[in-house]
């Protein structure tokens, strides 16, 4: 059997078109991401049909760039992998159609990956020292989950959001405050100049005996607070941003530590777009010594949607010979 396994991975679930070439699930030879922020920012949120059109428009550019910058040739590919589970259906179909076409054309196996599974592996990709079992907090615009990761492909969801994911709330609050899109990075940056203790907003569901989340109430609290106080000349947006951000960070960390204690896990993996948040990283690290766990964050390029993480999962599926037929379809809402 060939020693090196080189996989072309494709990810088009939302508003990033990404293609990567990954060797042995660990060495990222290329990871190209074409982001659509400019398409959607004037709407303050993602418009699915526009997003889907962008994926189709750029797909060959991204594939070509991924191959060219990887240093390998098409004939060197051992398999092609794609996220076909979880995402916006109109966007997913572009990546899946591309992957099936590549599989058929090059006569190489086709591997399907779940989007959230990809995020879970973004940390396994970044940190070989991260072992099984571990606890994974997946936080992004579309997902807010606590997952027990027992071993390869063995996951148990112990907590989920009952309404908005925290990343979505960052976007909505930023839109409401006219700060721009996407909200997360903008609020992160502004918060550095603000006082996170100035306003004590709720830490939703932190006192409840479960691992679920709910952020739409916090979102309403912020908007009502701002409406009430916006004409107050002392009010600084940076303080509102920082205090809001702190409320989210405290909630995420609080719930996660509680789960780690309950399930006796000392390794915590935080993944997804919101894992790029600097306050979340800083505060989590500060808790490490206090509570005796180790927290892992992906390298910055792997926090948001990317194909390299799909390639990482796919390697282990390749070893398992978990391949798909050419009648592969999309399952946009399939649970992990």
């Amino acid at each position, binding site marked *: 059997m060939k020693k090196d396994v080189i996989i072309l991975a494709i990810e088009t679930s939302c508003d990033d078109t990404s293609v990567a070439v990954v060797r042995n699930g660990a060495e990222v030879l290329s990871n190209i991401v074409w982001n659509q922020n400019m398409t959607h920012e004037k709407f303050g949120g993602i418009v699915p049909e526009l997003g889907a*059109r962008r994926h189709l428009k750029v797909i*060959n550019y991204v*594939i070509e760039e991924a191959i060219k910058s990887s240093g390998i040739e098409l004939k060197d590919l051992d398999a092609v992998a794609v996220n076909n589970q979880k995402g916006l259906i109109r966007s997913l*179909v*572009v990546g899946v159609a*591309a992957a099936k076409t590549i599989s058929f*054309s090059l006569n190489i196996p086709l591997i399907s990956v779940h989007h959230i599974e990809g995020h879970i592996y973004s940390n396994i990709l970044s940190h070989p020292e991260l072992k099984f079992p571990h606890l994974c907090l997946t936080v992004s615009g579309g997902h807010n989950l606590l997952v027990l990761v027992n071993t390869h492909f063995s996951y148990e969801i112990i907590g989920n959001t009952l309404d908005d994911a925290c990343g979505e709330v960052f976007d909505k609050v930023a839109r409401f405050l006219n700060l721009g899109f996407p909200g997360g990075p903008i609020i992160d940056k502004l918060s550095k100049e603000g006082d996170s203790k100035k306003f004590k907003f709720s830490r939703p569901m932190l006192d409840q005996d479960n691992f679920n989340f709910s952020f739409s109430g916090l979102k309403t609290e912020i908007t009502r607070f701002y409406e009430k106080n916006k004409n107050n000349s002392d009010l600084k947006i940076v303080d509102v941003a920082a205090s809001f951000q702190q409320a989210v960070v405290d909630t995420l960390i609080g719930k996660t530590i509680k789960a780690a204690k309950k399930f006796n896990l000392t390794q915590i993996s935080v993944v997804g777009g919101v894992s790029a948040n600097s306050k979340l990283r800083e505060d989590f690290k500060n808790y490490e010594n206090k509570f005796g766990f180790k927290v892992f964050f992906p390298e910055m390029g792997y926090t948001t949607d990317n194909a390299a993480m799909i390639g990482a999962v796919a390697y282990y599926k390749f070893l398992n010979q978990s391949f798909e037929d050419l*009648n592969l379809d999309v399952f946009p809402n399939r649970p992990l």
Partner: protein
Amino acid sequence: MKMKEELKYLVIDTSLENITNLNLFIGNKSTNIIYDESRAHLKNLILGIKEILERSNLKISDLNFISINEGPGSWTGLRIGYATLKVFAYINKLPLITYNNFEIILHKNKILNGLMLIKSSNVNYYFSLVNEGEVAQKGIIPEAELLLKFPNLEKFYLEEDLKLIEEVILQKFKNGNFANIFDVEPDYITEGLIISKFEK
């Protein structure tokens, strides 16, 4: 014995939501595979391409070019067809030729002045207005508004005719009219939604 000069090409049509239509031409003879299944383009298209080639004992490398219906039609159907064929063209280094449903109507009817119509949904039509032989306007119009908006124009509808499609495609091949496989997109027709009842 097959003549080496015979052109071999695939013609794919995913512009209808529930029909995946594949034709393989070897010279002027064609074989056909149709899937009549709602929302199944993604599931069926590549399998259909594999099957239609196998039935004629052809390899991908035997093809001279591939061709796809640009629409207008179902956005999702077109998207899946285009994603498949754009990548197919890139990976297999094949030229891609696109043809438009309005082109087919024009090719058959040689219209000077008239209105070309393609059903888009139960209530809407894609339309293309031809004025002195030139396309003047394109858009989407509810059927109920058709007579109100364009009362005196002769109307031309799309008819399924593989021969017309073959002629249009071969003409483009002869002229070297190939698509840019990086940038090419379907004909979404988003301009000109006319709903005169509700126009303010």
